[in-house]
């Protein structure tokens, strides 16, 4: 019988204090806590956690090494399947994946797999343990477009398999959404993101910033003129959606992408950096996903009072429960079952009010969630001077429109098969560019699948060298 102790909680920064700083909220486990938590794992014969992990980490195996105190071996086991464990341990939606299928969770609380993964990754970082084995060079080059999670996972697998990999990133720092989207208090940039990207670079992957594929160089040129044998497109879904309501172009209305990019990539919260950020006294964040929570908690930390406006009820919030609770603890106000219909401004064009209508839940819609319907004559106004639209993003059409033979679907997503092969031979794609906005780990899973497919495409006779 396994250790029947309750789930070991991870220590966190006090909510009142953290609501005013950008330091990481969760401190993670120390050695004792990690070993105690690891001792709860049942070591199932048919581990559901492993099946549910998009990159299929051997979770029971690494947890048993944590319990033994062999953290370096635990790190090696994870490294077989993931190049970004410190990132995934922090931002994966474990509750719906590995932890969601943990047997312990059926009756009580699941093993805290995410926190254990994070512990192992942080331990490896602290002790400078890196696993950089790779196969001999295959003498072929692959170009990877974008440097977000899907591209990094694909590039790491290809480099390990012996390919010469070059990543092209449009922005000034690699990482994609890990860098511009997810805030420092959830995912520290220097100690976590940069460190794990350095691991990928240590495998021999070259990263070239400031290159926007489709403008600086086209995919056709990469294949025809620059000597790449295959291309992986992991360009993400960066195009922000707006509601199309009156007043959306008033001064003080931002996409979550702009607000977060200014603060995360360009470090506007740090007075040593020049990029300005507009933060209101009273901010409304429209939307209920993780990006809405990130925007709300960022605005709060910059000194604003923040209200999240969401058209369904709390049960339907698409954000991770942990993020919602963190936001509530920190003092973010939630106005559920409300939908903006207009943004009002003053004579100089500055936002003054957000006009909303109350909603109720009707019949389930195509997504299976109950459809929000406006309640007639229930309009109300919130005084605000800043509105952040966190309504989701879609893929930018730049690569599709500048590459021959690349098809997209009606949502602007690249068409690719299960393995990531697009409609153009030699061009593969995955992550948000194919699925539309999703999660870091799903993007990584797609990147790994495509790496295996690229290996099969480029070296069919060698047999698979990508796991």
């Amino acid at each position, binding site marked *: 019988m396994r250790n029947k102790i309750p789930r070991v909680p991870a220590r966190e920064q006090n909510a009142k204090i953290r609501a005013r700083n950008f330091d990481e909220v969760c401190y993670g486990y120390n050695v004792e806590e990690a070993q105690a938590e690891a001792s709860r794992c049942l070591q199932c014969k048919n581990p559901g956690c492993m099946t549910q992990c998009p990159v299929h980490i051997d979770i029971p195996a690494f947890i048993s090494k944590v319990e033994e105190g062999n953290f370096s071996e635990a790190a090696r086991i994870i490294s077989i399947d993931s190049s970004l464990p410190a990132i995934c341990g922090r931002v994966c939606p474990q509750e719906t994946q590995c932890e969601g299928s943990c047997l312990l969770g059926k009756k009580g609380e699941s093993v805290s797999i995410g926190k254990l993964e994070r512990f192992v990754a942080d331990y490896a970082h602290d002790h400078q343990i890196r696993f950089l084995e790779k196969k001999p060079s295959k003498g072929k080059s692959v170009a990877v477009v974008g440097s977000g999670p899907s591209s990094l996972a694909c590039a790491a697998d290809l480099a390990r398999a012996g390919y010469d990999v070059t990543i092209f990133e*449009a*922005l*000034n720092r690699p990482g994609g959404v890990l860098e*511009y989207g997810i805030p420092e208090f959830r995912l520290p940039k220097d100690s976590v993101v940069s460190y794990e990207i350095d691991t990928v670079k240590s495998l021999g992957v070259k990263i070239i*910033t*400031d*290159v*926007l594929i489709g*403008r*600086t*160089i086209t995919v056709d040129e990469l294949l025809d003129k620059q000597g790449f044998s295959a291309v992986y497109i992991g360009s993400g879904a*960066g*195009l*922000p959606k*707006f509601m*199309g309501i009156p007043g*959306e*172009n008033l*001064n003080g209305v*931002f*996409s979550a*992408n*702009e607000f977060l*990019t*200014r603060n995360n990539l*360009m*470090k506007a919260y740090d007075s*040593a*950096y*020049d*990029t*300005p950020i*507009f933060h209101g006294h009273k901010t409304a964040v429209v939307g209920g996903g993780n990006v809405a929570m990130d925007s709300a908690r960022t605005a709060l930390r910059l000194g604003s009072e923040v209200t999240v406006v969401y058209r369904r009820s709390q049960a339907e919030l698409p954000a991770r429960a942990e993020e919602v609770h963190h936001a509530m603890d920190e003092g973010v106000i939630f106005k559920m079952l409300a939908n903006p219909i207009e943004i009002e401004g003053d004579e*100089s*064009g500055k936002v003054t009010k957000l006009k909303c209508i109350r909603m109720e839940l009707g019949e389930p819609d195509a997504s299976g969630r109950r459809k929000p319907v406006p309640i007639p004559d229930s309009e109300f106004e919130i005084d605000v001077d800043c509105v952040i639209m966190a309504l989701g993003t879609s893929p*930018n059409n*730049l690569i599709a429109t500048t590459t021959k033979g690349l098809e997209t679907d009606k949502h602007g997503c690249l068409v690719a098969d299960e393995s990531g092969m697009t409609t153009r031979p030699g061009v593969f794609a995955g992550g948000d560019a194919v699925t539309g906005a999703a999660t870091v780990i799903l993007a990584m899973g797609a990147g790994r699948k495509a790496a295996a497919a690229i290996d099969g495409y480029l070296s069919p006779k060698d047999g698979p060298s990508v796991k």
Partner: protein
Amino acid sequence: MYKITRKAFLTPSVCLMEVEAPRIAASAKPGQFLIVRSNETAERIPLTICDWDRNAGTVTIVTQIVGASSRIICNKGVGESFSDVAGPLGNPSDFCSLPDEQLKGRKYLMIGGGVGTAPVYPQVKYLQEHGAHCDVIIGARNSSLLIFADEMKSIAGRLFLCTDDGSVGEKGVVTAVAERLIGEGEKYDAAVSIGPMIMMKFCALTLKKYNIPLTVSLNSIMVDGTGMCGACRVSVGGKTRFACSEGPEFDGYEVDFDEAMRRQKLYRNEELAADERCRARLGEDKQ
């Protein structure tokens, strides 16, 4: 990377630089822009591409000192480098997709205002090289802000200069010169106007009377410049468009200039404060 190979002050507040950026030099077309980040703590600043040398692998940028970030850019010397230069961004000018047969003999009225004259230059060059004819009007508040007159003179069909105070060229605004030329019987197939928003707005109001298709180039606030943030959104023909990825050039008669001007002032207070700090850092006196 991104080393400055040549630097010249065209006026006390407008600086021309040639920068090593071979990938951009290889693919740049008229109408496009790039983004410069001077150093690790600097903003990303959109600047128009004024010229390029594909063999030397350099691009030419022209920057007017209007705040902290442009001051930092212009404060860099030959041999120093920028942290980042990304591009070319945005769409090439529409006429780049016209076949030479169509461009041949077409008559363009090209209007540049202040530092906006710099991006007009590669357009005139391209059009003239492809058989079109360009009359160019350069306007500025005064002679100390008027740039590119000599360069333009060597490539343009005819060149007209005007300043608000008459310190060089005609006394008056670009629209007055345009109306005079049209009044004298000149027929233009199309016009391009690049400069301060207010100038482009008045070009639209004026040229509309003569039914000359007008293209303007918007220098909106941007962060990434690749279609990701939406800071540059502008109403064109009643629809919201992103100046970075769908522009920067739009039909001049469809742009809501009043909204665009208002949106440009969004960070005015932050910009003024940043420039104060920047000048203090550089040890410059208040100008």
